[in-house]
């Protein structure tokens, strides 16, 4: 096969992927992007912000419930701008662990928090679906253990209808086992803070290493270091690496076979 044929074929595939993407996001509020508040994070995102009506995944390496990897703090900080116009924040807290003083310190209005507790997976998916579908919900944060393909797609459709932001906290094992319908996927690692802050500022700010695993039209494996200070504000930035590009999920599905072949080839 000549090089021209290969190029035209890849061009067709790219066009098709683009069409699938536009079809897939047709239900979503168009052109609404909300800045995370952090320049370095925004630079990694399409249109410098999170798209209204999309899902975001924060994954961690450690699956332990007792690890304290910082994902919830990051999620709350990302969610905060979505509450600015009076919308509500929904948090799934089935284990009854949330601590209100700390939420208040993050400047999250407590009167606009709805906490959902669920006992089983079907109620959990139903609750998420309803919350994401509501126009009153600016952001939703939930831990995810197992999320099968159909439920994930259901959540994606719900968030597109509601126009808010769904933030899923999951461990890497779960994220790799099940397909994701999230628009943006970060891997989060809590960084040791000793090299970042010394003296009286110790443990008044916390640092995270974030690796961008997926964002439409952006480079994946992009790494940044971000911190959150005692007032819940972003601090500092440090971009590290700009390797290969990533496509939207629809585009990935469209080009799934060549990708798998590439991966198999090493």
């Amino acid at each position, binding site marked *: 096969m000549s090089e021209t044929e290969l190029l035209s074929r890849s061009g067709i595939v790219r066009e098709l992927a683009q069409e699938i993407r536009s079809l897939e996001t047709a239900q979503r509020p168009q052109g609404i992007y909300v800045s995370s508040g952090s320049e370095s994070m925004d630079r990694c995102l399409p249109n410098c912000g999170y798209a209204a009506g999309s899902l975001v995944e924060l994954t961690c390496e450690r*699956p*332990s*419930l*007792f*690890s*304290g*990897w*910082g994902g*919830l*703090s990051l999620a*709350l900080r990302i969610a905060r701008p979505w509450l*600015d*116009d*009076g919308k*509500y924040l929904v948090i799934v807290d089935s*284990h*009854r*662990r*949330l*601590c*209100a*003083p*700390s*939420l*208040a*310190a993050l*400047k*999250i*209005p*407590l*009167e*606009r*928090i*709805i*906490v*959902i*507790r*669920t*006992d089983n997976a079907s*109620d959990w998916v*139903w*609750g998420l679906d*309803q*919350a994401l579908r*509501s126009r*009153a*919900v600016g952001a939703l944060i939930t831990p995810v253990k197992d999320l099968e393909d159909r439920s994930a797609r259901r959540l994606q459709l719900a968030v597109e209808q509601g126009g808010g932001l769904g933030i899923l906290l999951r461990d890497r094992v779960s994220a790799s086992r099940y397909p994701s319908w999230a628009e943006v996927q970060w891997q989060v690692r*809590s*960084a*040791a*803070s*000793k090299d970042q802050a010394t003296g009286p500022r*110790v*443990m*008044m700010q*916390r640092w995270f290493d974030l690796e961008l695993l997926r964002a439409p039209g952006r480079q994946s494996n992009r790494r940044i270091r971000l911190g*959150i*200070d*005692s*007032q819940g504000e972003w601090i500092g930035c440090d971009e590290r690496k700009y390797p290969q590009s990533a496509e939207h999920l629809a585009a990935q599905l469209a080009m799934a076979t060549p990708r798998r072949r590439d991966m198999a080839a090493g």
Partner: protein
Amino acid sequence: MVSAANAQARALGVLPGMTATQAKSIAGSLQTSSSHPGLANPGDWSWIEHDTQEDLEEIYSLAERLMQFSPLVGVESIDKILWAGRSILQPQSICIDITGLESWYGGEMAMAQALQRWLTSEGRFGCIGIADSLGQAWAVSNYAFRKHVNTWMLQIERNESSLSESLQQNPRIERIASGATWEAFRNLPIESLRLDIETVAKLHRLGIRSIESLVCLPRQSLTSRFGSRLLERIDQCLNAHPESISVRNSGQSLEVCIDFEHPVFHTDELHEALQDGIQQLCQKLDSIGHGAWRLLVRLGLEVSTMQIEQNAPRAVPSHVIQLGLFQTSNDPKHLLWLIDGCLERNPPHLGKNLGIKQILIQAPWTAPIRWKQNPLFDCQTLRYRDEAAKLIDGLAARLGRNQVVGLSLVQDPIPERQTKSKPLTGLRNDGTEQSTKRKLRKAPIEDFQKNRSMLPGTESHWTRPLQLLPTPIRIDIQLDANGTPRRGRLSCDPNKKSSASKEFETILEAIGPERIESSWWSGPTVRRSYYRVALDSGLWWWIYQDLASLQWYLHGMFH
């Protein structure tokens, strides 16, 4: 004040009605002494804050379900002052007017037995009294079995007998024959007259403990010595003076009743009928400018004739749906959606043998629909309130009232008590009526930025973790020469359900100690030294040392 105590606590001497200080001294002595036979470990006891709203919700919910036995069901009206013999100022009894209904069941005793069986099937332990007046029935139901109730309940709590076995052994039904004189109540204590603590104490000082002794006193002197309330209570109980029941289903409640000529066996037909009923109810509500705070749907079930031929009972308990709303609504689509959610979660299991004969839809509590005025200044809290109300109502209808909650701060030094979560739907502020007027007058809650609390942890994000463990986990900590934590590990990894084999993790930084001590009036003393620690793996923990046992615990994660 101790509101309730389980079998173990009662066995140790902690009793309802006891002040927290007394209970604290008992608990404190247990903590310091060697292990008590009632407790596996000295620290195996805990205090749970009494949730008044939850109690009210339960008793009102039970009263609404009891309306299948009589249309006139109410919760006892309490006084402003606590009655002697009671530990909390809340309604605890349900009053049912059964006048003329007993013949349906084959007599008063048969009706009481049916009621008792239903209570047992609901998992409730009840005592029933039947008498001519409310005061008499109250006295016998509350005090006829008083001496034995504790023993019977202890047996059930200790699994020595089940609820149904206990009922078979002791039916707990006391019937006072019509026209009975005071002699039928002679052995009851004076507390059974619903008297306040002060009056009862005065009478006790005079050596008057039973009704028999009380009626011997000259009636004329009672008012001057004890006030007019005592005579009123005596008349209500001993002379059967009439007393009204504040019924749930009063003339003010709006309702729609649909009777079917033939029972409905299919869900589709039920849905259509409900749609019509809700539409009619909403029109009624709309005509007076009200919305429903609370909705009650009663599906009157009936067994088909096939079953009757097989000598099965024809009447079965009705299926009841109870809904509390986040804000008043008269939107038929919304209300129908909520009812559908409830039916999906708890279906009536219709079939060829079980059908619906009647649908009763009631709005026991209504209030004016909140009118909206365009705000002069932008009010963020109210902008999406209507949308949020629909979401909250829907979630609560399907998931359950207690599964959809809001958070608030509580001024308390103990971290686990600083967060209060309360259901967002169906709240009542007292035992009699929903204080809608006050709610309507209430200004919207300001955003947090304008009204910051002075609670520790609210000033800086990293001084308190975002998540607290419901039960702190024991950890092993190695200290340096200054007594500061330097290395730590979980004593037992709860994820793996095995003993610790994990190696110690180095603690890079430890900020503390932050000493936290409970107030003397709020239960047993809690004294802890908290540290915020950063592990070399980048994780942050909130740990404390219990100053009584010197054991270290992981209390929360900076998630």
